[in-house]
Structure formats: structure tokens, C-alpha cells
């Protein structure tokens, strides 16, 4: 029995280019490109990667309809038994694209999909129930291990074999509940768990409790013409020279800069964000952090004033933990300064 696999990668792993090619429309190569080659070799003789789709990360996220149509046509042409995407590691846009592939191929075309992501990839939530998402490291340094796990699981998926538990096989739990036999009655297990909890001992919930972290929407501003509004960005816009050495990815800090009296960020600020093509933001940073318009609205009286400090950090690859900490620290300053509202821009 021989099997066909269709492989999806982004512009970087497809060896076309970096950020400058993130806007490229998808193309289909008959050859195995990048990780597709490694995957093909690991799968052995019965399986062949029959094509590699290469698509720009920005393109997929900004032109979802067209990208999805391309995937559907590609699947129709190649008729694969399995579709593989990524692995995307911690690359957010790439993860979202892989999730998009999972959505159309697994949900609509009913063909199994396997991909790989780091636990904090924003694409994980929407893809884990549709595809098998292998847990990977946060960077391409983990490519070898990721492909090894992905190929092992792919072999089982192709043969129709049942996969073991997520924690044993190395993929993210899909939220599926399985009936298993236990050596103890439920009542016994429940009492044991309760006793352990009373005694402060470790116990493992058989069903993990979901954590919903929604924030109550803050009350709207009554009188905007008197409001002091702060500008914050995750687009990595910093003063020329990056005096505080904010990182280009996986930020460890945020910066605050006095913008009193400035009508725009042009000429004095630029971007150090490593996750998008910097050309346009360097020409005119207000394309990412629109101080020019906020100042205009201040002069027109639409808003009261622009808070004199501008807050910035880099979003790409920045851990959830750090993001929470930065948000808390910045929020505290804004609250203490009597700021009424904030605009936060992201790239």
C-alpha cells in the first residue's frame, strides 16, 4: 500500500525568502522542499510527498479566502492521503496559517492533517481539535525532533492505527474524552482525590478544569474631549539607536518614551521588531503607532490629550508570561498617571 502526502510550508522554510517574501501568494512545487524532504525520508518507501505548497505567512493571514481556495485546488489535484503543515514552532503567523490549513483540509475536505507547534503558538487553540498538533520546541533548532515525532504519528495515522495518549505520543490533547476501565470505582477515586487535596498532597484531576480568563470590558469614556489617552504598541517602535536595547524577538523588557510636543514619530523612531518587514515602519513609524493622528485629534478637540509617554515592546516570540507582566506594569503606570484610555497597536 503506498500513500501520498501533500506538504505545506511558509516562504522561509520553502526557501524562497524571509520577511520580504511574507506576502507571496501560494505556489505548488512538485518537488519536496525544505522540511518536506526530511519528512519524506523519514516516512520510508511506502509514503511519498507528492508536492510542497509554499505560501507567504502574511498572504495567508491577510487573504484567507484566496489561500484556502488554493489549498482546496491543490488537494484536488494531488489527492493526498495526509496533509502535513509546518512545523511552525513559535512563529505566530505561520502557526495561524497551519491552523487555517487544518481547518479547510480536516474539517471540510475530511483528510487527516498533522502539524507541529510550540505550546504558546497562537495557532494552537484553533488547530488542536482539527489536526494532530505535535508539541515542538520554540525554534527551528527543534526541527529534527519535531519531524521525527510527526513522521512516527503520521505513519500510524496513515495505517489507521489508534494513537496513544497525547502525553505519551507527544501531541497536544484534543479535548477528546475516552472511556477507559479502571481498577477502582469512581467513588473510591473521588474520595482518594479529595483526601489528597485536604492533606495538601499532589493529585491529578482526571478531567483538567478549563481556565477562562476574560476581563470585564472597562466602562466607556463619557466625554472623549476631556480624555487623556495613551498610545502603546507591540510593534517594536523605539527611538533611533534603540537606547534601551529592547530585543527584536522574545522581549525581556518594554520601553517608555516622552513624546510631549511631538506631532509624529517620523525621523526619530524606527522599528526593531524582528517579525515583520521593517521597511514601511522605518519610513514612517506612525504606520504602526499612529501618534500623528492622535495628535491631530487632540488639536481638533476630539480627545483631551495624548499621554506624554509612549509605551513599546516587541510582540514576536515574547512569552505569554512576559506579556502579562509587561501589561501589568504598564497598566499600573497608566492608572497612577490618571490615564483615561489606551490604544494598543499590534503588527
Amino acid at each position, binding site marked *: 500500500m503506498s500513500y501520498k502526502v501533500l506538504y505545506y510550508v511558509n516562504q522561509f522554510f520553502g526557501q524562497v525568502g524571509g520577511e520580504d517574501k511574507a506576502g507571496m501568494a501560494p505556489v505548488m512545487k512538485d518537488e519536496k522542499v525544505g522540511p518536506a524532504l526530511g519528512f519524506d525520508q523519514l516516512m520510508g518507501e511506502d509514503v511519498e510527498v507528492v508536492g510542497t505548497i509554499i505560501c507567504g505567512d502574511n498572504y495567508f493571514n491577510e487573504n484567507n479566502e484566496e489561500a484556502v481556495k488554493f489549498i482546496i485546488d491543490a488537494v484536488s489535484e494531488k489527492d493526498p492521503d495526509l496533509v502535513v503543515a509546518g512545523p511552525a514552532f513559535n512563529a505566530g503567523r505561520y502557526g495561524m496559517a497551519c491552523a487555517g490549513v487544518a481547518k479547510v483540509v480536516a474539517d471540510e475536505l475530511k483528510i487527516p492533517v498533522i502539524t507541529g507547534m510550540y505550546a504558546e503558538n497562537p495557532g494552537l487553540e484553533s488547530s488542536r481539535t482539527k489536526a494532530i498538533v505535535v508539541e515542538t520546541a520554540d525554534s527551528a533548532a527543534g526541527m529534527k525532533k519535531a519531524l521525527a515525532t510527526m513522521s512516527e504519528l503520521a505513519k500510524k495515522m496513515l495505517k489507521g492505527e489508534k494513537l496513544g495518549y497525547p502525553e505519551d505520543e507527544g501531541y497536544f490533547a484534543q479535548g477528546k474524552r475516552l472511556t477507559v476501565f479502571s481498577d477502582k470505582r469512581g467513588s473510591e477515586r473521588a474520595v482518594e482525590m479529595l483526601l489528597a487535596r485536604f492533606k495538601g498532597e499532589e493529585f491529578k484531576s482526571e478531567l483538567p478544569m478549563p481556565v477562562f*480568563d476574560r476581563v470585564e*470590558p472597562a466602562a466607556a469614556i463619557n466625554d*472623549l474631549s476631556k480624555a487623556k489617552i495613551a498610545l502603546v504598541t507591540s510593534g517594536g517602535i523605539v527611538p533611533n539607536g534603540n537606547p534601551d536595547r529592547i530585543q527584536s524577538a522574545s522581549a525581556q523588557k518594554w520601553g517608555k518614551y516622552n513624546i510631549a510636543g511631538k506631532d509624529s514619530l517620523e525621523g526619530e523612531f524606527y522599528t526593531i521588531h524582528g517579525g515583520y518587514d521593517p521597511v514601511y515602519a522605518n519610513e514612517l513609524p506612525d504606520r504602526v503607532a*499612529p501618534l500623528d493622528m492622535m495628535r491631530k*485629534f487632540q488639536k481638533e478637540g476630539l480627545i483631551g490629550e495624548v499621554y506624554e509617554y509612549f509605551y513599546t515592546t516587541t510582540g514576536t516570540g515574547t512569552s505569554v508570561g512576559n506579556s502579562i507582566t509587561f*501589561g501589568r506594569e504598564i497598566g499600573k503606570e497608566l492608572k497612577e498617571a490618571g490615564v483615561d484610555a489606551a490604544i*494598543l497597536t*499590534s503588527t
Partner: protein
Amino acid sequence: MVKEIERYGIPIVHMSTITTISESVGANRIVPTIAIPYPVGNPNLSKVVEEDLREKLVRRAITALGTEVEETTYF
């Protein structure tokens, strides 16, 4: 970051391009923007038209700050 700032009771609007991320993380006021490398801009347009575009988007953000919402709302 958006949520942590909002937790202080400060109304905040997230202007972002990949709104699915914004929504899944839990921003309450969202303004979808143009593109990843230029959320509130478009270098393919002439200066005047581009400024007009940016003004429109930021105005939407300000409107969002003045609008009561109960749940995730796009502006």
C-alpha cells in the same frame, strides 16, 4: 498586554491585523487593521490617501473607547 491594562479599569482598544488572535486572547474592543507590516498605513497609496486611511482607523479606535461593550466587539 491589552487584558492586563484593561484589568485596571482602563478602556483599551486593540488595533490589530490578525484579529483571530486578538479575539481568542480576549480583547474586548478590536479595530481590524490593514496589514502586518503597516497596520495603520498603506505604502501603496499616495501620502494624502494613506493619511486619510490612518485617520479613519484611529477615529474608529477613539469611537470604540467611547462605546459601552458587553463582550468582544469589532469597530
